């Protein structure tokens, strides 16, 4: 069972999850009286009609890639970061605050400082959950979910109070949003007339770096070892608690960076509802992409398409955009079930025989054809 089999096998998981999501979506859409097929067509092709739609997909893919990379690091290291939503908000707050604090600084310093501040803010917020888990054994899922709610309140408090644009107070409209960032802190727009910004290069570059970190460095090996089997890793001399905290710092950092990039690239100020569910969608993107950068990038583009398409159906077909949450939920349930079920050596062996009969994989070990390989790598 070689590399090719594992690839096909991983593809099977994604295929099953997609099928389950489609089935669930069909059910829900019929229940609310919409035409399922027509809705799917709108979601999947609507954004592709013009250049603006296509660039919008990429605009959403940027934060999704960043968030999902962080989540992939944390999941691979054995700590489940559900707190990206809150970390994004803290990243937005700290990135905005730094950019507003130094409007006179040259672009060469201000923009990197703004992004760095976002990443640091997110890392601190994620680090809380990491330290709580490593020191006090607090379940990280619960603590990150709670930190999401806390961050959301902090975000509204700051945007309505201390960080509100003074103009809003003067005109009396009181929209909760910060002052506009100085131009020196903006990311370039790549295509004029669209919102596509240079953050996409950053996201792709970091995708490569994460791959390099996880699979080509000692640190990455330690992280993955701690995630794969903490007892064995500890026995091999790996400081498991330290890698948990480190993984959460990185995951939070990526989410915070996503927030700062979103501010510097798209909105140019902190506004309410900016994170737009990227934190939760990022979890799905990471799982859909097989927790690997090479899978995460296409998965993020695909979910970017879904997000833009869901907005369109809200306007054209009257299907609420909350629908996307249902899809995400079903995709998660389907992926984790399919992965677990297919890890079963008997199921693997059946799949292997089937694929071999179809001529899709060759047997590397001709003599042992069909023999049960109980220890096969999942």
């Amino acid at each position, binding site marked *: 069972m070689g590399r090719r089999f594992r690839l096909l096998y991983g593809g099977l998981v994604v295929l099953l999850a997609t099928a389950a999501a489609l089935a669930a979506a069909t059910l829900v859409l019929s229940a609310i009286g919409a035409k399922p097929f027509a809705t799917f067509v709108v979601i999947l092709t609507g954004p592709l009609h013009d250049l603006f739609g296509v660039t919008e997909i990429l605009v959403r893919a940027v934060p999704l890639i960043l968030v999902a990379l962080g989540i992939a690091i944390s999941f691979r290291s054995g700590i489940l970061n559900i707190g990206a939503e809150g970390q994004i908000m803290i990243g937005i707050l700290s990135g905005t605050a730094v950019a507003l604090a130094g409007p006179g600084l040259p672009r060469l310093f201000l923009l990197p400082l703004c992004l760095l501040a976002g990443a640091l803010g997110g890392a601190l917020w994620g680090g809380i959950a990491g330290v709580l888990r490593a020191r006090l054994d607090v379940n990280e899922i619960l603590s990150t979910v709670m930190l999401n709610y806390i961050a959301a309140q902090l975000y509204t408090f700051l945007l309505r*109070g201390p960080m509100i644009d003074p103009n809003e107070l003067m005109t009396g409209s009181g929209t909760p949003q910060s002052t506009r960032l100085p131009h020196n802190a903006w990311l370039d727009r790549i295509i004029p007339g669209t919102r596509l910004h240079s953050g996409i290069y950053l996201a792709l570059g970091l995708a490569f770096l994460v791959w390099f970190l996880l699979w080509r460095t000692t640190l990455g090996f330690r992280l993955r070892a701690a995630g794969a089997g903490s007892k064995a890793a500890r026995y091999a001399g790996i400081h498991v608690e330290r890698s948990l905290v480190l993984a959460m710092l990185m995951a939070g950092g990526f989410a915070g960076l996503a927030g700062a990039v979103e501010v510097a690239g798209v909105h140019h100020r902190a506004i309410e509802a900016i994170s737009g569910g990227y934190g939760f969608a990022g979890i799905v993107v990471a799982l859909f992409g097989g927790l690997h950068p090479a899978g995460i990038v296409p998965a993020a583009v695909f979910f970017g398409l879904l997000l833009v398409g869901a907005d369109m159906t809200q306007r054209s077909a009257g299907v609420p955009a909350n629908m996307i949450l*249902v899809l995400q*939920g079903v995709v*998660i349930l389907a992926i984790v079930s399919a992965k*677990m079920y297919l890890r079963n050596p008997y199921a693997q062996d059946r799949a292997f025989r089937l694929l071999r009969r179809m001529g899709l994989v060759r047997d590397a070990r001709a003599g042992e054809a069909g023999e049960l390989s109980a220890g096969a790598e999942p």
Partner: protein
Amino acid sequence: MLYDILSLGVPFSVALLLAALGEMFNQRAGVFNLGCDGIMSLGAFLGFLPPYLLRTSTLFPYANLAGFALAALAGVFLGLVFAVVTVTFRAPQGIAGIGLQMLGWGLAGTIFRHFIGGVTGVEGVAAWPIPVLSRIPYLGGILFDHNPVVYLAMLAVPASWFLLYRTPWGLRVRAVGTHPRAADTMGTSVTRVRYQALMLGGAMAGLGGAYLSLCQAKMFADDLVAGRGFIAVALVYFGRWSPFGILGGALLFSLAQALQLSIQVGGIKFPYEFAVMLPYVMVILVLALARRSRMLGPAALGRPYDREMRV
């Protein structure tokens, strides 16, 4: 002041109490159900639906009851979905729970926005003071002057205790959550008991959600549940997996909420957002302090059982 806090706090605790008791059965059977929050969302919406739809019909007197029944049914259904995923397919429970939460929350939001749209109130369940007892000074107002669901929920605490510790089914639940292999060897079907526990837990979470929309807020909005399902999960840790401990935890949280409300009404300047934050901060503190009690938890909590595997 103290009287106000106590008489507000008792009804506030019910949604948390019901959901946490349900979660206790899940965890006692060895399954960690983080989807509780999503089940509550769907329950809150479906509980609200019949009174909303039947508001002009002659069937209206039964609408609240129908709401609770519908919410419980939806809870059973989502519990069943979770059982298929975590018991039959043995998926990791933490991340699967987040999937279930998104599913329940998304379903409630989608149907709500499509058919109803804006925030709408319902008449809800009226208070139902217990004849003589509610006239006792102070104590009557705190304990015996609420809607009937409050009394039923309080009765659910000893009932859950009895079910868990004094019935054969409760023994099976505890066995399956402590040592599934031993239970399996003795002829108890681990799968079946876990399915049953998840369905019961789902029904109770659904009822807790319906209580929120029908008795507490008397309206539905997308974010009505606001993480109460996650707080309920934390309460199970805090209450050390026992019904009376969970009651104490639920009261602690709801009293904190009532305290915060009365501080605001009392006119003390305090940013609203920090007041809303309080319960979430409390959950983290509670989890950090409840560290040692984790030893008392079900030994097989979070571990899928596979009869064909060694270990």
